[in-house]
């Protein structure tokens, strides 16, 4: 027998067309427990619905997933609406889910979504309205139950990280009908008396109903009105309450709130050490640069060796003296030459030279030069000076004569 072989695509396409023809499969309502819940970056949600014996692959595309009024999670029992079809590429069938409804919590979910939408529209979640947290809170108001792990965890972690912050507990009930007004009242009271510069409010994990006080409109409005910054810390990581949306900061757990609220002592030690190192380095740098400047000055010999400086100055002085002497010498030698010339002139005019030509000088007994015959009389003794000696003479006779010289000619 010859049989026509089908391609894989042909077979899967045939099964797909058969299933698509079945109206029961196109409008399904399936109950089960969620497992392997995954949200892809594409925005599509993938999960498996299972019961005790069997499981069903499910996909919820983004355009339906955004309409979810709760956060589906593993272990949650839900009713899924949709159709079953074949995914050709893999040859598997899956439920394409158009809506999910959590079992039981339906009313609360609706209320939550309604309040969330309302407050969001009013601007209570506006990021621009959120207040910055103090970097070093001095007083932290903790608004929660005074019993329970949450307050204990917060005190312990805050103490480990930043014991400088004083903790002020405002004990309130965190579940039951009294809880919302008590929490809201404590937030208003903390503001009224300025008991702290930071508020943490919240509680440990629990069921959706347990956390309900933090989905209360009165609590949300009290948080919004608080002038003191508020950290909301409710339940475990995936639980998100209205208070989380409206608070200035959301913490995933009370312990996480303690970590957000204060700096860490150990990190601060490192910071301080960093400042110590930086200021020391800055000083060392400055001292080093001043040292280099000093070194370059010192290398000028005046400072390395003052004697050298003085020696140099001494040498300068010597050189000045030399110059001075040279100048003096030049001046003196000039004078000397003039002196020689003058000497020669003087020599030429010397009476001794005249005498050597045969003249004599007559001097009386008092040693005075006799210039006129009128100054002498017969019998006077005269001393005649020759160029090579002198002689004593006696005047025998005085005879006046014509005066020689140029005077008469004028």
């Amino acid at each position: 027998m010859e049989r026509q072989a089908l391609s894989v695509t042909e077979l899967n396409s045939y099964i797909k067309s058969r299933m698509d023809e079945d109206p029961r499969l196109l409008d399904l309502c399936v109950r089960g427990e969620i497992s392997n819940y995954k949200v892809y970056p594409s925005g599509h949600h993938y999960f498996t619905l299972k019961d005790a014996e069997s499981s069903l692959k499910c996909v919820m595309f983004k355009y339906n997933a955004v309409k979810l009024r709760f956060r589906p999670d593993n272990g949650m029992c839900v009713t899924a609406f949709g159709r079953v079809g074949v995914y050709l590429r893999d040859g598997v069938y899956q439920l394409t889910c158009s809506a999910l409804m959590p079992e039981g919590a339906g009313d609360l979910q609706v209320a939550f979504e309604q309040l969330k939408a309302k407050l969001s529209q009013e601007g209570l979640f506006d990021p621009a309205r959120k207040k910055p947290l103090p970097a070093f809170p001095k007083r932290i108001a903790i608004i929660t139950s005074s019993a329970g792990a949450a307050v204990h965890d917060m005190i312990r972690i805050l103490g480990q990280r930043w014991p400088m912050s004083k903790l002020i507990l405002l004990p309130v009930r965190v579940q039951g009908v009294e809880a919302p007004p008590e929490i809201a009242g404590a937030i208003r009271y903390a503001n009224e008396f300025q008991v702290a510069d930071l508020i943490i409010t919240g509680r440990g994990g629990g069921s959706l109903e347990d956390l309900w006080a933090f989905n209360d409109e009165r609590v949300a409005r009290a948080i919004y009105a608080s002038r003191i910054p508020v950290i909301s810390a409710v339940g475990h990581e995936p639980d998100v309450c209205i208070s989380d949306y409206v608070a200035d900061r959301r913490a995933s757990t009370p312990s996480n709130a303690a970590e957000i609220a204060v700096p860490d002592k150990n990190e601060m030690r490192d910071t301080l050490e960093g400042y110590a190192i930086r200021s020391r380095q800055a000083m060392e740098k400055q001292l080093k640069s001043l040292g280099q400047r000093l070194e370059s000055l010192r290398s000028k010999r005046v400072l390395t060796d003052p004697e050298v400086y003085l020696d140099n100055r001494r040498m300068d002085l010597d050189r000045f003296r030399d110059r001075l002497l040279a100048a003096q010498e030049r001046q003196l030698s000039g004078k000397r030459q003039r002196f020689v010339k003058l000497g020669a002139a003087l020599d030429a005019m010397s009476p001794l030279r005249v005498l050597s030509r045969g003249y004599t000088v007559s001097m009386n007994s008092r040693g005075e030069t006799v210039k006129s015959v009128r100054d002498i009389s017969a019998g006077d003794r005269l001393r005649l000076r020759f160029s090579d000696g002198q002689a004593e003479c006696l005047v025998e006779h005085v005879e006046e004569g014509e005066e020689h010289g140029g005077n008469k000619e004028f």
Partner: protein
Amino acid sequence: MAETKSFEQKLSRLDEIVRHLEKGDLPLSDSLALFEEGTGLLTDCSKMLEEAEQKVVKLRKGADRQPEELPFEDET
């Protein structure tokens, strides 16, 4: 009391000083004065950090709604 300035104020002054020193444009005497001030602040801050003891109180509305601090006993 010497501790008139908060840890935060001291830390912020310290930050200012270190930035100033790092600019390196101050006369040596000014730098040394700042360095000394910074060293003092570092000592103060470390001391505050190491000597701090956590204080926990419970608040109660007293007369005229005024807050009253009570000792807190951890009930867990």
